[in-house]
């Protein structure tokens, strides 16, 4: 497995003269759980739509398991699960009718597993989608994306409307024991940062159509520190300066030579605020 399982190569996406994605490149190794975070409008949903081939980039390209996203093979499609930001359901169908309809599209669909997931998430299956609450619509989308035991799972704010208990059940379901040999690779965009901290292996921070920072989450917490400097000096190992230069706040990477070690450690919330200040 030389190639990353999910990748974007210099992806440029312009919408109504606005550059939504600006030269984005991204490599996600197999088995990673990548948290994609950034403010509203940073380009997260557009990036995810490009990755699964729902949108064609103006320049550059994306690949899933070596296959161009704009031209996915049936075998990659079979291994892919995607949850859109706005649940994509058939209004007039009930949950179990969705199971029949979606399940028939996948050779690996596991009806028993889908029912088990629905029970874990407390999802009513005999109500038409249009009569479900937004939270229940999200649950149904999640179950439909997981029902065929995908190896690649791309989730665009899948849990925004779910209560904390259900979000826990959802996060456990991500790692549920599976038939597949290959470990599941997940990208999940979310504003619920404390949830992400529990499950991610990697985090990518997006701002204004670019990826500001991406690394293993353990490495970021262990090596990134916030330091305060006087005036315009750049601290050794400085990788990011807060947009208000007069504050003299820098993120330093203590893996770089000479970087000070006495800065403040940051959790995901802190880091998000610093990078977007």
């Amino acid at each position, binding site marked *: 497995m030389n190639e990353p399982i999910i990748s974007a190569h210099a992806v440029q996406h312009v919408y109504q003269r606005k550059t939504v994605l600006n030269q984005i490149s991204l490599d996600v190794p197999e*088995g990673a*759980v990548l948290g994609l975070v950034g403010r509203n409008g940073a380009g997260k949903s557009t990036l995810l739509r490009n990755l699964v081939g729902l949108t064609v980039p103006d320049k550059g390209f994306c690949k899933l398991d070596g296959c161009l996203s704009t031209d996915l093979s049936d075998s990659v499609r079979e291994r892919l699960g995607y949850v859109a930001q706005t649940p994509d359901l058939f209004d007039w169908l009930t949950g179990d009718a969705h199971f029949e309809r979606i399940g028939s599209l996948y050779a690996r669909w596991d009806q028993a597993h889908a029912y088990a997931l629905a029970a874990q998430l407390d999802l009513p299956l005999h109500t038409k989608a249009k009569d479900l609450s937004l939270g229940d619509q999200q649950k149904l989308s999640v179950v439909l994306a997981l029902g065929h035991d995908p190896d690649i799972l791309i989730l665009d704010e899948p849990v925004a409307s779910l209560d904390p208990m259900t979000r*826990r059940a959802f*996060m*456990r379901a991500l*790692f549920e*024991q599976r038939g597949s040999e290959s470990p599941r690779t997940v990208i999940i965009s979310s504003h619920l940062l*404390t949830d992400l*901290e*529990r*499950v*991610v*292996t990697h985090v990518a921070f997006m701002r204004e159509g670019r990826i500001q920072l991406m690394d293993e*989450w*353990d490495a970021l*917490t*262990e090596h990134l520190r916030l330091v305060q400097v006087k005036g315009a000096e750049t601290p050794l190992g400085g990788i990011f300066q807060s947009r208000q230069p007069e504050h003299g706040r820098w993120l330093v990477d203590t893996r770089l030579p000479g970087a000070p070690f006495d800065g403040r*450690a*940051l*959790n*995901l*919330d*802190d880091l998000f605020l610093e990078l977007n200040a």
Partner: protein
Amino acid sequence: MHMIFSIAPSDPTPIYRQIVDQVRRQIAGGVIVPGQELPSVRAMAQQHTINPMTVSKAYSLLEAEGLLERRRGMGMVVANHSEQSDKVQPQDLLRPSLKAAAQQARQLGLTAQAALAQFEECLKKTHQEETP
């Protein structure tokens, strides 16, 4: 005695490190003893809603340190000859947190007596929470 794990995802200490530190402390303090089995990776991940890979990483590090052993059919157990626990005094492992607390107490202008009273209260409270 059974193991106590408390995972705080928002703590800027990585979760794998929290697990490593807590296992190490409980071995040093004799809360868990040689031969005792640790929760399986899956059980631990499910209980705390964390990534199973994070638990594996912690267990592997502890195994490399010689504190845990992989036993066939049982998973991870506390190693028999936890040599390190002889060298490391349990008190030493408490020192870093106490040092940090001491600094804060100073910044808050608390007297030593007031700070000690707080610590005593915390000890009592933790004990009550863990004794059903």
